[in-house]
């Protein structure tokens, strides 16, 4: 059974890859034909300006509106970025064809071999986002990964698709430090698992604690370290774990406004990635640390900074924070103006968080 599941998954992955390559070819052909006809090539890039980012209640995420800007090679001020975008498409095409991966920084340097210069990495990062918007695909699809890596641990068998490892399987509980969610893991097929849920946790320290305390076994969980704001590959993996393996996702973050938003991004995406759709887990649940937990569990706190408070006001304008615990917790944070980190539970012993807090929360999550 697992075999056929795997085949099907592999087939989906291949299809997806071919679709991307077709898309790149299509874009390339369009530019090629324009040039061949003596026309200045151009293409439209969905506008990522704030005014074009709207919240889609149905999709429960931010999406881009219909506004698009025309990027033309005729326009002198766009010629350079047009060329950069073409180069990136060309580069991505090679990466996908050759099944190689690259990083944001890598892209920045690779460009220099083609006389396409980027002023700095932010400029090349920006062009990568442009290409994502044009293709409506995350950069990970065309094998470009950020530097930051998050990790995963638990009973999950995967099958690699990267060159040299095709067909090779690994169980993600084999190594006690966990596995980096890198290009090969991101592109691997999810074969089998005995886990019943996924716990995404904001901090590496607690991730290690959870492994040591055998949370994976005790709660039949796959543990994911988001390492702060979850990278897209991690969010994509969470989505696949939820959709393909039918696992519920719970999220544990620090008890502050940033933690709350980390959970929200996993659940419904970020405005920055409004041009991408397959990165959200709308059913994911944020289980703590809530503002209300601070008092309830008598956690030691730190006073909020001005920027914390400003962030609360900002988020209160976000349509996703208009209801439920998202709204109430923000209000409490604003009221108490204090925050607590996940490590705060250590005041009551190192295993307090896994022995007391986690079970309560997991229990509670079932009823939400």
């Amino acid at each position, binding site marked *: 059974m697992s075999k056929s599941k795997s085949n099907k998954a592999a087939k989906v992955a291949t299809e997806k890859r071919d679709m991307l390559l077709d898309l790149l070819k299509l874009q390339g*052909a369009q530019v090629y034909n324009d040039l061949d006809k003596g026309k200045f090539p151009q293409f439209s890039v969905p506008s990522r300006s704030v005014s074009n980012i709207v919240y889609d209640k149905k999709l429960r995420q931010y999406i881009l509106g219909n506004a698009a800007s025309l990027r033309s090679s005729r326009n002198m001020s766009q010629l350079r970025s047009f060329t950069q975008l073409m180069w990136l498409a060309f580069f991505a095409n090679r990466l996908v064809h050759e099944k190689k991966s690259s990083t944001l920084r890598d892209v920045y340097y690779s460009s220099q071999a083609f006389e396409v210069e980027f002023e700095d990495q932010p400029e090349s990062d920006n062009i990568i986002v442009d290409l994502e918007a044009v293709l409506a695909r995350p950069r990970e699809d065309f094998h470009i990964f950020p530097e930051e890596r998050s990790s995963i641990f638990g009973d999950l068998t995967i099958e690699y698709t990267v060159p040299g490892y095709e067909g090779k399987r690994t169980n993600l509980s084999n190594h006690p430090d966990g596995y980096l969610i890198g290009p090969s893991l991101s592109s691997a097929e999810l074969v089998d698992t005995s886990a019943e849920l996924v716990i995404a946790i904001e901090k590496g320290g607690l991730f290690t604690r959870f492994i040591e305390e055998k949370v994976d076994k005790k709660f039949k969980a796959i543990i994911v370290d988001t390492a702060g704001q979850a990278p897209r590959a991690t969010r994509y993996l969470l989505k696949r774990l939820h959709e393909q393996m039918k696992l519920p996702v719970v999220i544990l973050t620090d008890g502050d406004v940033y933690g709350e938003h980390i959970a929200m991004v996993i659940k419904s995406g970020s405005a920055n990635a409004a041009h991408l759709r397959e990165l959200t887990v709308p059913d994911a649940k944020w289980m703590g640390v809530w503002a209300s937990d601070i008092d309830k569990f008598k956690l030691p706190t730190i006073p909020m900074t001005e920027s914390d408070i400003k962030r609360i006001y900002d988020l209160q304008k976000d349509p996703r924070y208009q209801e439920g615990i998202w709204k109430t917790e923000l209000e409490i944070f604003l009221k108490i103006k204090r925050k607590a980190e996940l490590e705060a539970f250590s005041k009551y012993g190192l295993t307090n968080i896994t022995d007391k807090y986690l079970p309560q929360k997991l229990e509670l999550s079932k009823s939400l």
Partner: protein
Amino acid sequence: MSKEVFNQISPSEFFYRNRDLAGFSNPTRSLYTAVREFVENGLDACDQQGILPDIHLYIKAVDPEKPDPKPYVLTVKDNGPGMDSNQIPLAFGTVLYGSKFGLKQARGMFGLGATMAILYGQITTNKPVTVSSSVDGKTLHKYEMMLDIQKNKPVIMKHTKEETNKKGLNVSITLDGDYSKAGSKIRDYVYQTSLITPYATITFDDPKGEKFQYKRIVDTMPPAPTIIRPHPHGVDVETIRRMIADTHYQVPVLDNAMIDKVKKELGLSKKSLNFEGIMARAEKKWSSLSRPVRVIVSVMSFLNMDFDKIMKIRLEDIDLVHKRLTYYDFGDSKLVTVDMPKSSSYYKQLANTVQGDSLVTFLTKRFQRIGQATAIKFSEFANLKAEKRIGSFTNEELVQLSDSLQKYEDFLTPDPSCLAPLGEEPLRKGMSQFFKPDFLEVYQRSASAYSGFPFVVEMGIAYGGNIPPGKMTVYRFANRIPLLYDEGSDVVLKVVNETDWNRYKVKNESPVVIVSHICSTRIPYKTVGKENVADREEIEKEIRLALQYLSRKLAAYMSKRGLAEIEKKRANLYLKYLPLIAQFSTELAGKNKEPDYKKVIKDLNNVQVEEQ
């Protein structure tokens, strides 16, 4: 009691003692000044005769091995009209011999400088000056001579004649100089002189064996300046005195030639008569006598003298106001004054001759732009009788006349026909040849005047081309002479520095050259060095207006240039990026052959037009 001794000194000696004033203070300055004097004399000579000048300057060290300062041979050769053989000794061998005493624009003032250079050369090296001249293009007169400084007299050492086929003058002197220090100044001078004299060919062979050659750029000479009468605002008491003196008939000099002339006209060359006889003969022949002879006869009648007696006196003064005649008697060695009875018919003759013109006639005849009506109005203004003969003016009246001439405001502005600006076209061509600029504009203001002296300002501005970026360069000229130094307080630089160049889109490092040429019968120099022009209000205004006009033109060009540069940049960008786009799209589209993107680049020109 000690007695103070008064010695008369000759002009040569005076100038030698005051050579600093003339620019011969040290070997560096002297070499430079000598070059200027000879080159400018050559140019002036050609200008006056309407000859396109060819000036060749050579400086050679007598002994190249010696350290500076050391003797140099300086030679300047021109293709001018040359100088009559018999004038050469006086012109080059005496100080204060010159022909430039008229009122018109010329480079040098009186031609003193060349003699000063010769004098300086002789003092420092004890070598003679060599002057070769041909006025007919056939015979060349060559003089070698020295100056007798005490006597202000030339001493001719050698005079030879040769055949030649070229007109012109060649002057060569040996003088102590310091070329290592003066060199850059001299080279600048030659360069800038060529710039403002585009109708001349100027070459310079320097002592180090370098040759500088500035070929003629235009073949038309600017119209030569004409000699004109002075403007009433531009004269002082002393000038008026001099004008009056040469207006009326001068007190005759009683020399042998004059006496011979009188005798001849009376038919007494071989016959001697007594006083009465002479008077009788004169009365008989009166109508046929020339004016000077009549004057002498009148004087003889008052003095009761025959030819023998009158040969022994010198006339000192004929004072018509007091009807007195004063003479110096060589025999008695004393001054004698006699009264002139008004009743004598000879008195009237003398009076009319000596008193000269009436004030009105004097004004209309001797000044520019004064007509009968103006002269009469002025007489009323000055409270002087219009019909009064100027020879009878007292000192007080002369001062009154001079003051009133300055104060009277209804005279017409000075006549600029005595000025010789270069002209817009020659200036444009000269600048164009020198700087090969991307932008060039020239402008000549119409004539204006300050204190009775007419002047004209012409300017040019050039941008880019061969002009190196850096500080803006201002070339200043006055009467076609480059002003090289002491620029600090010069009126042109003042105006340039006060200009807000940002307004004209000129940045600090912009390659800009400004040429300014002020022409006037009298340039108001600030210092003796004659290197900077004083900021007279009228001159400053003209310069400002000229510069504003040019700057606006430059600004318009700079805006256009800005656009053009953007276009160029654009074209370059397309050339850079389109091939890359073609390369990437070829691989993306899975094609083997690159698209024919060159068509797009070919269409670039159309795009530019379209987007402008």
